[in-house]
């Protein structure tokens, strides 16, 4: 198993009363609350943590999110470029540029190719569909976001691999008549691709394409369901069974000298859920295209219907799901497989329990710093993890995915 460290570089310094007053801590919280000096310090610390991971034998992953306290990485390629130059051994995963937000995805291919050349072929490319408040922040139509996602991947893939002069693309969502990127990628074939998705239909397409399927904070049930949809889609398409190197899971990870210390750090990581998830309803349940219209009875109402049980297939309120995540305690997060925290032994066991529950995966994306966690705390957790957990995870070999699942 490989481990990929990631930090979204959240901004935990907005006064609580301003957060309480705001209806959303993303998209519409004025940037007067974002102090450039504090931002500079955060970038310095977090980039240093990435360099430490390189020393400790971990790979790195960089996300992208926009206009909110949850992340200062509005430009994934910018950070990717820095890491491509400064990191010497680790593989670097962009997870990823939010392609459906970018009107010209050929530029994304150029950025990826440049990072791959600078790092001499250590780039891995991840795609994330984006959604919620980022549609407003980026002026991106939430309708047909999924269609744009796949067309953008097709176009970027071709731009990264086509070497015989300009080609033209006149698709449904993207048109570009003269595509011929320089430099071309360092890697002779298309860099390995990843996609972060939890919905089974997207996971199925990820499976058919042989892309690494990343589940982020979905817990064992959601992850098992998505992984199963992925495997089933491959089987139905007559494709060979995937190995575990096509599956990944992203969770909060904190290691301490004691169980209590690990959990205390884990509680700080949960700031991402209990503070930075606050969305106004227009970015959540009322965002067009987010849920099928048939889900509206569950999402539009402020309270469930008193009379009788819900109709079969009725989807629970998006707001209720978000509220449940926002109020999660460290112990609950541990039980739900969102947080692996404690001593090194305990963290290893928690990871392996999850591994068994979902049918295996070769990649752990470790969200190791968030919220009020300090640079010193992050470094200590990383060092403990790399010394006492990482070697054991590295011993886990690639096997057939879903080896212990009923559908395998």
């Amino acid at each position, binding site marked *: 198993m490989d481990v990929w460290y990631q930090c979204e570089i959240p901004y935990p310094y907005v006064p609580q009363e301003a957060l309480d007053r705001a*209806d959303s801590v993303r*998209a*519409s919280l004025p940037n007067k609350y974002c102090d450039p000096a504090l931002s500079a310090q955060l970038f310095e610390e977090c980039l240093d943590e990435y360099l430490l991971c390189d020393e400790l034998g971990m790979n790195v992953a960089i996300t992208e999110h926009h206009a909110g306290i949850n992340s200062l990485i509005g430009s994934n390629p910018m950070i990717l470029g820095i890491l491509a130059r400064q990191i010497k051994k680790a593989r670097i995963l962009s997870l990823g540029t939010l392609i459906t937000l970018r009107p010209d995805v050929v530029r994304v291919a150029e950025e990826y190719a440049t990072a791959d050349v600078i790092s001499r072929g250590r780039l891995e490319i991840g795609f994330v569909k984006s959604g919620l408040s980022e549609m*407003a922040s980026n*002026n991106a*139509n*939430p*309708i*047909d976001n999924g269609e744009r996602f796949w067309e953008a991947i097709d176009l970027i893939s071709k731009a990264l691999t086509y070497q015989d002069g300009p080609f033209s693309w006149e698709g449904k969502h993207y048109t570009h008549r003269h595509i011929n990127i320089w430099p071309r990628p360092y890697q002779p074939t298309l860099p390995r691709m990843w996609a972060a998705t939890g919905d089974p239909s997207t996971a199925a397409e990820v499976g058919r394409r042989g892309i690494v399927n990343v589940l982020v904070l979905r817990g064992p049930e959601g992850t098992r369901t998505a992984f199963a949809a992925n495997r089933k889609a491959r089987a139905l398409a007559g494709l060979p069974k995937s190995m575990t190197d096509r599956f990944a899971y992203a969770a909060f990870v904190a290691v301490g000298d004691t169980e209590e210390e690990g959990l205390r750090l884990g509680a700080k990581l949960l700031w991402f859920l209990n503070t930075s998830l606050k969305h*106004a*309803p*227009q*970015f959540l349940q*009322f*965002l*067009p*295209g987010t*849920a099928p*219209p*048939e*889900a*509206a*009875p569950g*999402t*539009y*109402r*402020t*309270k469930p219907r008193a009379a009788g049980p819900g*109709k079969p297939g009725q989807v629970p309120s998006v707001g209720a799901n978000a509220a449940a995540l926002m109020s999660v305690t460290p112990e609950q997060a541990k039980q739900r497989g969102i947080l692996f925290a404690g001593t090194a032994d305990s963290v290893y066991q928690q990871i392996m329990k999850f591994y068994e529950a979902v049918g295996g995966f070769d990649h752990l994306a470790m969200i190791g710093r968030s919220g009020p966690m300090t640079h010193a705390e992050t470094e200590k957790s990383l060092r403990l993890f790399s010394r006492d957990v990482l070697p054991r995870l590295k011993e886990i070999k690639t096997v057939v995915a879903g080896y212990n699942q009923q559908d395998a």
Partner: protein
Amino acid sequence: MTNAIAAATERLSVAGCDLEVVRRGKGRPVLLLHGFQNVDPSAPFLDGLGRQAEIIAPSHPGFGDSKRPVDFGTIYDLVHLYLDVLDALPYEKVSLMGFSFGGWLAAELAIKAGKRIDRLVLVDALGIKISGPDTPDILDVFNKHPNEVIRCGWHDPKRWAPDYDAMEDEQLIVRARNWDALCRYGWHPYMYNPQLKRWLHRIKQPTMVVWGASDGIVKPSYGETYAKLIPGARFELIPDAGHYPEIEQSDAFVKRVGGFLAS
């Protein structure tokens, strides 16, 4: 708000689109193009206008119970669909009335098919850009808090704004469908055609621009400018009404608009 959506049972098949249509009344035909929501068949203004005109109110593809073909999804498609609808209706001339988003469509149609249009009524219509680049003319109904959208949309929100908790499942599903469809057609550029203003001079038909005096989605001053861009158009304000004067002040609305259509 009533549970009468299912009463809109008439269908009209045009250009590969199967449209549900609300029909009401007798008299000179009026093609009514709806706004953010498809027309509620139980809305009192329909009966009021129906005493003086024949109202034909299709739901746009993707709205209400009108399915959207997979290759259909732009304002261009909507305008050309309604050109086909004009051809399909058994009348030499039809008056056009557009509410809000449908007002944008009505203005586009009037520019293109003037000879087929008898009279034009634009009600709190969208579709043009007036102010500078950093001054939005039209409230961003997708990116503003729903409470703000309600506050701006109605003169008396407590009385008129929809209560989702009181609505039936099917009504909520239709609203969500409408919201998705509106977003598909109107997200970018947001609810206007940058070139529409350039061509409004082509509208030669008698035109009435009607506005709710309290409209905060798109203010009366926008309506006044809209009217000035259409040769000979008259502008009328309806007091104590927001973005939906046909609902909040249906009697006053019917009196003004019905009189104009029948004149």
